[in-house]
């Protein structure tokens, strides 16, 4: 089959690789009909996530039709499914609590020790996202093997287009969980750093959950326009001092909740941001935290910080004093996708949520390397790339 493989920083290639096959009783094989490039794929593309190996198949947002099932898979051949990017067994302590992204049994034993050394406990398995999370082949391919197919994939009713439901695999539930983690109460003012796909869905979700005002922060006009289209006020951090603006807009109190949808490659303009970028690019540091620091500083006393943005390692100058002294609550983590899929699918079916507004480009799977290069280099225009195997 054809698949997009990782070979190093800014080096991804379409290659012919062996077809996947059933390895365990609960597996299924999916023929991919649509897949997408995620903002977090760019962290892999930029080489800032540990544990990648040459030849790894990328992609964790995908959907398709079931073409093969293991003995214990309940899926029927031909069923159309969206697959969560988190691989979860459904029976461990964590899955039993709905913490599917913390599953204890989906990361192969041989791969667990690296993340255990880094983080204290082994991470769960994810599709196409480094060997820290299992080294599972991803979905930017013609076919994917899906372990625990009785827990993850959700069957999509006919009548819904791929693009209406594809983002159930990651970014829609990630934006939704980010808003839930912000503990939004009716009338709250919520500030969202980053108007990439997750940030935009966080804006949409915050408004759905009753926020009185959402303030979206980015520097790309098209992305800010999309946020404005959802009903947010917008701040361009190039032309406006974000902290001063937020204080002014909230009467000196600060936002009730702040959401960092930027993560480890945030931009800043001061000397500290320059040093942090240099350290990351030379391998002397791992994460850049400009947006996170700004969010903590701006958040009101007793407010809530939700951080769906991806961080991988260590962060210097983390404002633990502000976090403690202001009594902020912090919630973060990979998304427990399976917990939210059914509810979000219902909201899509009922027309409450539209997910297609952020798609800027549709490309054949074979053009995936071009999609990555442009998504990285032209973020103003390339807001979301959907890849279609077999597209002419």
């Amino acid at each position, binding site marked *: 089959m054809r698949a997009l493989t990782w070979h190093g920083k800014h080096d991804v290639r379409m290659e012919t690789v062996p077809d996947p096959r*059933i390895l365990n009783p609960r597996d299924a094989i999916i023929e991919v009909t649509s897949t997408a490039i995620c903002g977090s794929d760019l962290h892999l593309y930029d080489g800032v996530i540990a544990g990648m190996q040459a030849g790894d198949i990328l992609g964790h947002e995908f959907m398709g039709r079931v073409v093969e099932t293991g003995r*214990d898979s309940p899926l029927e051949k031909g069923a159309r499914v969206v697959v969560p990017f988190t691989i979860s067994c459904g029976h461990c*302590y964590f899955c039993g609590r709905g913490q599917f992204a913390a599953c204890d*049994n989906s990361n*192969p034993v041989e791969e667990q020790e690296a993340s255990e050394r880094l983080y204290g406990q082994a991470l769960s398995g994810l599709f196409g996202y480094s060997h820290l999370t*299992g080294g599972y082949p991803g979905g930017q391919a013609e076919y994917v093997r899906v372990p625990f197919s009785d827990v993850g994939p959700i069957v999509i009713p006919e009548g819904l287009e791929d693009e209406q439901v594809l983002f159930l695999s990651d970014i829609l539930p990630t934006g939704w969980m980010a808003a839930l983690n912000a503990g939004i109460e009716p009338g709250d003012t919520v500030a969202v750093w980053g108007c990439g796909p997750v940030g935009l869905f966080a804006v949409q979700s915050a408004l759905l959950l009753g926020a009185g005002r959402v303030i979206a922060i980015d520097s790309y006009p098209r992305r800010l326009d999309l946020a404005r289209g959802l009903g947010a006020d917008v701040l361009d951090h190039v032309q406006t001092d974000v902290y001063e603006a937020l204080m002014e807009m909230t009467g000196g109190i600060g936002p009730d909740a702040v959401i960092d949808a930027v993560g480890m490659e945030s931009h800043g303009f001061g000397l500290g941001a320059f040093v942090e970028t240099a350290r990351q690019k030379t391998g002397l540091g791992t994460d850049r935290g400009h947006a996170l620091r700004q969010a903590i500083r701006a958040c009101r006393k007793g407010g809530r910080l939700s951080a769906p943005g991806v961080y991988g390692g260590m962060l210097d100058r983390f404002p633990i004093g502000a976090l403690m002294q202001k009594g902020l609550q912090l919630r973060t983590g990979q998304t427990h996708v399976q*917990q939210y899929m059914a509810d979000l699918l219902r909201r899509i079916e009922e027309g409450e949520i539209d997910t297609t507004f952020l798609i800027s480009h549709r490309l054949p799977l074979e053009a995936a390397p071009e999609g990555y290069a442009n998504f990285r280099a032209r973020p103003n225009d390339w807001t979301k790339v959907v890849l279609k195997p077999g597209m002419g």
Partner: protein
Amino acid sequence: MPDRSRTPPWKALAGLTLIGGLFLAQRELSRLRRRRAFPDDGPARARAGLVLDRPAAGASVRVNAPAEGLMAFWRDPANLPLLAGTPSVVTSQADGSFVWDLGPGGGPRLHLRRVEETAEGAGDSLAWESVPGSETTAEARLAFRPAPGGRGTIVSAEVRRPPGRAAAAEAELRRALRRFRMLAETGEIALAKAAPPLAPPDPPAWPKGGFASDAGDAPRPEPRAEAETNPLRPRRGDDPCAP
């Protein structure tokens, strides 16, 4: 004429080494005194600093299931290959002992027998030891304790191997227990790529509802039928690829 007022570098280095050594020795002595005066509840394997009487290699895992079925699994010698992590063969002998052949590259053959423990708490543990004449020696013990709050069972393994194998044994044990947890909780061992099967055994009966011991309030996937949730479902000769 040489300048005798300057200290030669080797003397300075020796002095620093001596000071460092004394500091470390004083710290270890202080730890030892503290341990004697006020022994805490930490497991012996987790002792900090220099430990001369380090116990056998060991590891623990919490399994979301009651102890009864977990112990039944390990009473069957055919399940021992799960500990090795590589395909291997266990052959039962007429006297109740069994020979574990780790295969090419796996080391010498191990001739083991189950030991009936009589000490307090033995009812919650299983033990094995090598018999005289075995090509190598080993002692192993698995203990099963209920986790606090009814959250499954803490399974602890201890293995004594010949000197030089202890570090490897600990890492192997940790992996083995995690494979066991996967099999017990999910019925399969997670794989990201094809790997030789570990010869999953014919299963003993599995306790019904073994997985429900600590289910929270969060939404869960639709429960599977009992037959499907049997963690020992993979049977020798079964083809997981068969629909």
